[in-house]
């Protein structure tokens, strides 16, 4: 089990579309303590996903610094960032992005191909991840044979199988119904409460906010509100 803190200092991100410059983040500074569960909220175009991409090393800031644990991301090469992501970050996407031709277990095993470990070790880790997300009985099912919630569980298992320091979830419940969304959010709360993972989740869903220790509201690329969540303690206690 491991967790890392996240620190963004005066981060700007400008996208260029032809002659137009679009500012996605405008001098954002934020610190996320190790092992905390932070929910990022805000209207469309407020810079939520951009923030997640910068923290995950998928994109580079136009200005400012992004640190995750000991890694100063804006100083790393693309190759270095790719290798760093494989060991330190787990991604969960709204659209799951599972490989449709591989089974649930094989999808979860994919990130482990980047590690030097035996087939037995990999299979053991996959089994553990499947147990955690409650899909031990769906090992050999392909994504097309799973429900949306089950697919997202597989995606979560894929994100945690490498035991990353940080889990970044981009609208993980955006494509799910209310009941399944609650199950997924509970699963993320469980990962935070039992395994101490640093989780940053972007969501539009107000119910998602209840699962975070802290809710950060962005608007037009700047920090609008940063709220400690009182209901989280009760939720976390329930998962412990």
């Amino acid at each position, binding site marked *: 089990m491991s967790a890392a803190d996240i620190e963004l200092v005066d981060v700007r991100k400008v996208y260029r579309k032809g002659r137009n410059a679009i500012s996605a983040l405008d001098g954002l500074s934020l610190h996320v303590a190790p092992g905390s569960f932070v929910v990022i909220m805000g209207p469309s175009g407020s810079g939520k996903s951009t923030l997640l*991409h910068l923290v*995950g090393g*998928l*994109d580079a800031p136009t200005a400012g610094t992004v640190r995750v644990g000991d890694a100063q991301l804006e100083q790393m090469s693309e*190759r270095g960032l*790719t*290798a760093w*992501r*494989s*060991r330190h970050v*787990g*991604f969960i*996407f709204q*659209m799951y*992005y599972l*490989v*449709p*031709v*591989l089974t649930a277990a*094989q999808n979860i*095993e*994919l*990130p482990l*191909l*980047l590690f030097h470990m035996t087939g037995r070790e990999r299979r053991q880790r996959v089994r553990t991840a499947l147990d955690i997300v409650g899909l031990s009985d769906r090992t050999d099912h392909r994504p097309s044979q799973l429900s949306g919630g089950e697919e997202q569980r597989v995606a979560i298992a*894929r994100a945690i199988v490498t035991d990353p320091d940080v889990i970044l979830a981009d609208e993980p419940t955006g494509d799910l119904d209310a009941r399944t969304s609650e199950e997924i959010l509970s699963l993320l709360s469980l990962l935070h409460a039992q395994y101490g993972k640093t989780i940053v989740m972007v969501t539009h869903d107000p119910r998602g906010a209840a699962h975070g220790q802290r809710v950060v509201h962005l608007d037009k690329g700047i920090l609008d509100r940063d709220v400690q969540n009182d209901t989280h303690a009760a939720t976390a206690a329930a998962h412990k």
Partner: protein
Amino acid sequence: MPLQLVYLGRNLTRNPLRTLLTAAAVALPITIVVLSSAVIDGINLFLDNSGKQLRLVVVNRASIVALLPEGYRAKLEVVDARRPIHVCGQRWLGGQLPNDPRPLSTLAADVDTFPAVFPDYLLRPGELEAWQTDRQALIVGRGTATQFGWQVGDRITINPSVPPYVPLQFHVVSTAPDAVDTYTLFCRRDYIAEELKRNHYMEDRVSLFFVKCRSASDLEFYRTAIDPFFANATDETMTQDEKTFMNQFITQQFDLPRNLTILCAITVLVATLAAANTMSMNFRDRLGEYATLKSIGFGRRAILATVQAESLAVCAAGGLCGALVPYIAFTYTRLREYPVPLIQQLQIRPVVCLLAVGVALAIGLLAGAWPAWLAARLKPVDAFRALE
């Protein structure tokens, strides 16, 4: 099985029809490459054999279809008495069977010098004697004999494509089991001369002379000595060694090697474009997948290898089919007995098949290069944004 191989295999069967059509688009050109190589091999074998025979070919300088006086033979034989040669005059007959449209390649040859000029014929017991005693004797290339189902002793009728234009009766005396040329038929020129005379055609002219020399130095001597000998005659000659003559004949008539090479290059290019199109479609279909793989830590090389491996696998499968089908067909079926003019028989060598599979792999590398590069350079953020 390693997950990488499972992933490759599943990718190949993700869209089976697309994979199948792409493999077929590669297989067909590879078949053309293999068959073309076999044809070019056959021509080279034929030319190499011609080059070893120490034979010169003397034709009319005006044109290959213009005839030469048969009396030139006696003059040729005394160009240099210190360098003895054998001269065999031959007249083109061509021909067909009465009820069969397939063309025959029949030549009427001087009966006395034919065995000396073409020593790979009439070697079996009784063949030479039959050739010398039967004026209707016919030597049939073994490929042609197999094609028409002829055996020694058969009587056949040929309608010549040129004078005397009357059906001619022949007796098969040999199927030339030892000759390199499995296609050509040889009959006696004295028999044809009689028929020409009877039908009021000029009988004392030949299409060409084959001059058999004893050594390479003699061959070189006669190659340069004959034409000056007949300079300023009514029918001037053009003398070439047999390989040059045959090569020129092939080039003038249809230049198969060059045209086949061009055909192969074009079909390989088309196959490359087809395979590249498929790989590009695959890339577009899997944009999110590649972006995810990069997000979870797969580097450029791994992504590049994933795309290239798929392209190589499809093209290798197509290449193997494209090479194996003609190899099996022309090695283990009756197709191998089918004679082809000049080429004799299509013999497909395993090394040609291996080279063809190599060509298919090259197609795979080229076809996968652009989508692999795009996938390797893909920025996950851009891909996710495009998919939103």
